[in-house]
Structure formats: C-alpha cells, structure tokens
C-alpha cells in the first residue's frame, strides 16, 4: 500500500451557497471515481474538514462527470457579508478537500505532480 493525496487522483472547485459552501470533486479517471465513492464518505470528509465545517455534510454523486458534490453546512461563519472569515465565500474549501490522504494499492495510478 502507498499513501496518496486526493489531488493526485482528482481536482476540485468550491464556492458559497448561502451560509454553506459546496465543493465539487472531479476524478481524473473512472477508476479514481469508483475508489473516491468508497473513500470520500461523509464521515471521512467531516473529520478532515472538522475545523472548517460546523454543520451537516451532504454528498451528491455525478457518475457522468466522475464527480462528487459536497454541501458543507455552516462553513462560512454566516453567509456573505455577515461572515468575519478571511474566506467568507468558501473559495478555498476545494483546495482543502484535495489535501485528504488515502491508502491505496501500490499499483493504483496516481499523478505525481504536486499542487
């Protein structure tokens, strides 16, 4: 087994949805998507983003785009102009997702390029 970062098998984008943010994670390959579906459980994401997300997390699957969409509840310290956070719109939450680490078989294809 080897340890990989999510950014070696996926890319992401995030933004705000009222008092929540959403992070779309898109996998480079179908194989990566199938693995991601198993690994990126709501519980696992909640634990990774514990210092950002105060509310509920919902996951939606988009097999057509090899993508998972996460709604990150109460992650902005209030919505829009109410927020005191430096990142009041969750623009950086996708990049935070990409820092997740996983154990995968040694021969699992993963991009070496760093972000």
């Amino acid at each position: 087994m080897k340890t990989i970062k999510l950014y070696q098998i996926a890319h992401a984008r995030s933004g705000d949805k009222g008092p929540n943010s959403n992070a779309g994670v898109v996998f480079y390959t179908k194989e990566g998507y199938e693995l991601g579906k198993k690994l990126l459980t709501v519980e696992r994401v909640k634990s990774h983003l514990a210092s950002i997300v105060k509310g509920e997390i919902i996951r939606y699957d988009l097999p057509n785009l090899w993508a998972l969409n996460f709604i990150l509840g109460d992650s902005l310290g209030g919505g829009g102009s109410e927020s005191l956070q430096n990142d009041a719109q969750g623009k950086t939450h996708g990049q935070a997702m990409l820092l997740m680490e996983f154990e995968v078989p040694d021969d699992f294809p993963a991009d070496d390029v760093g972000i």
Partner: protein
Amino acid sequence: MKNLVRIGNGQGFWGDSIDAPVRLVEDGPLDYLTLDYLAEVTMSIMQRQKEKNPKAGYARDFVELIDRILPTLIKKNIKVIANAGGVNAPAAAEALKEVARKHGVHDLKIGIVEGDDILNRIDVLVTAGAIFENMENGEPFAQIRDRIKSANVYIGAFPIAEALNQGAQIVLAGRVTDPALALGPMIHEFGWTENEYDKLALGTLAGHITECGAQCTGGNYSRWWEVPDYAGIGYPVIEIQPDGKFVITKHAGTGGIVNRMGVSEQILYEMGDPKHYISPDVVVDFTSLNLRDEGQNRVGVDFVKGAEATPFYKVSMSYFAGYKASGQLTVSGPKAYEKAQKVAEIIWERLKRAGYSFEDTRTEYLGISSCHGDIRPVPEQINEVVLRLSVRDGDYKKVDRFGKEIAPVITSGPPGITGFAGGRPKAQEIIAYWPALIDKNLIKTSVTVVE
C-alpha cells in the same frame, strides 16, 4: 433561422475585468454579449443611490462600457443583454440614449425588462398571500420585515427573449438569473417554447457554465500550471444550434484553456442538488449530461434532461444586520507566530478592560491557518504571519471602538510588528441576505422597447 448563434459572456460578477467585454466584441465573431453586474449586496447599494438621486440606481460601469464598444456593436450587429438596469433600468436607458447621441446613433433600440423589484410592493404581496419565510432555515419574515433594504425576484429568460423579439439591440434587466442572460437570446433566435424542457435545459446549462466569465476558460482551474497566457485569458463563447446542442469555446489567439476538466469544475460551482437545478424557466438534471472534447479549446454538450419549472420564483431580499470591522497587522522575526498570538491576546484583553464585548469576534493567522484551520500542521519556521482580528455587533460605537485598538500595540507590544498602513479599520454596515420563494402568479414582468 440561423443555424449557429454565438453568445459571449464578458462580465462574470460585479467588479470583473472592464476590458474583457471589449476583447470579446473585437477579437472574434459574436452575435450576443451578456454581462452580469449584480452581486447580492449590489441591489441594496443601488436602492440607496436611487433614494438619493432618482436618476441613479443602475450599473454605471455598463454605460461606460457601451460608450467604448457602441461603434463595434453597430458595425458587427452584436446585441447586448445585461442586468445592469439594477433597480432603475429606465434611468440606465436614458443614460444609454445619451451615449448613443454622442456617437451619432439615433435609432438604437433599448429593451427594458422590469417587474423584479418588489421592494415597494411587499405589503400588497403579503396581503395577496406571500409568506416570504427564509427558504434556507424556515425563519419567519417578521424577523426582518422592518429592516429590508432591497427585495428582488429572480426572473427568467422569456422576458429577455420578448425584448429581443421587439427589436432591442441592448436589453437592460434588473435581477434575472445569470443563465437567463444567455438563454434569452436562444429562445429569441430559435423560437423555443416554455415546454421544450430539454432545449431550455441545454441553454440553461450553457449559461450556467459561462456565467462566471473566465472560470470556464482556465480561471480558478486546479491544474493552473498548465494554463497558457493567463494574462490574456479569453472569456467564454457559447456556440449553440437550433436543437440546443452547444460548444463552449473562446476566441482564437486568446489565453486560457477550455477543456473537460475546467468545464466539469465550473458545472459543479455553487451547485446544490445536481439532479434538480432549479431555474425559473426549467429544472435541469446535471447528472444526465456528457461532456465531449471537440479539439483544442472546445467542449461540447449534446443532451441534458430538463423538466417543467416550479410554480415559484426565488426572491432575494437584503436587510440591515449590524456592523463589522477587520484589522490586520504583520508580525515578523523570531517566534513570529507566538508573537502574533500574544498580540491578539493583548488587543482582546485591552478591549475587555475598557468594558467592551461583541456579538462575535474572530482571530485569524493569515499564512498559517485562516483558510484551512488545522488541516495541515503549523510549519516549524515561520518568517512572518499576518494577524487578522474581526468583530461584529449591532452597536456601531462598539465596532468603531475596536478599530481604535489595533495600532497602539505596534508601540506597546512585542517587536517586529508592521503593516498598518491602511489606517484604522472602519465599521462597515452588514447587509445580510434573505432568500425566499413567491408564487409566480403574484409577479408581473413587463417589457418595453424605447428608441
């Protein structure tokens, strides 16, 4: 009927590049230029401008832009659709007429789409049955009713199409959905009807992909190191056919990149439930589409499933919610992070001893943990860190007092602190956002074309 229509988006948000729309009309073929000038807080600012001056309350940037590009628009017969009308589209039209006269153009047709602004009709609408409870958390409207600064309905694409049907070269709307700016001209060109759900869904999807400007042409793109010529990034162009099949591209020779990865990221941007993307025109199922790479900088979509629109419009209200302020200091040298933590402690303690407490406060360390908390460990060696302190409170005086407590610590705290060039942080009004729904039957949109 044309067999291909090109729609470019030159403005993704209030404050986007002022040159991007100029490049779009000058650097390649285009039939329509769409422009988004409204953020959620913009409407309240525009309502205030209109209160002070009945000829204000729209996006001035748009009038300046038309002054720059009108000769090209006329020469190439490019039509423009913008939500620049804000809360006073008739006044924006007057300003445009003046620009047209200056350029010697006397037959410029301007379409005005109205009916979105319901600020002065709230009482009437409540009497007629509108509830306006917060659609995010179910809180009752009574909580904010006396603090409302603006109230607008997100209207759809059909009134825009109607303005184009009546011959408008420039369509000025207020609050319409962002994808409607692109869908309007498609409905006009191809005669799509309200029950052609799959076609409306394709048009809405195309508008959704391009609504944030360069975010589908290489902006905010994960593999940023692969993007050529960011400085000259091209803004997006939709090439769409009468059956709704479309390609997302950009003008030849411009910077940036259009590929499946970037378009996929943008499809998910600000997305909720992807099976039910609700617009006033149609409900789109984003899990039913396939993206096709069509050669360099071209991504195509042939199908996406649409369903009948809901009986509601979304309402966006803004209301006064107190004050906030943020102040920053840069802390450098040995033990920079420890010093920054000490500085924060000192400032909060001084405010406490002076008798101040706040509804909410926040302490952030930019460069260490402000965006991602403790996801990554704190580095062992830190050269410098920016301390950012913020408060929020309903009492202006308290927030103002906070602003006076930042600078003194530079001479009365640990060494190596700088970066206070901006002066005392000022208390800013918080304009909060209240989303609600309203029965479509209670809203009447209107279209007028003036010359």
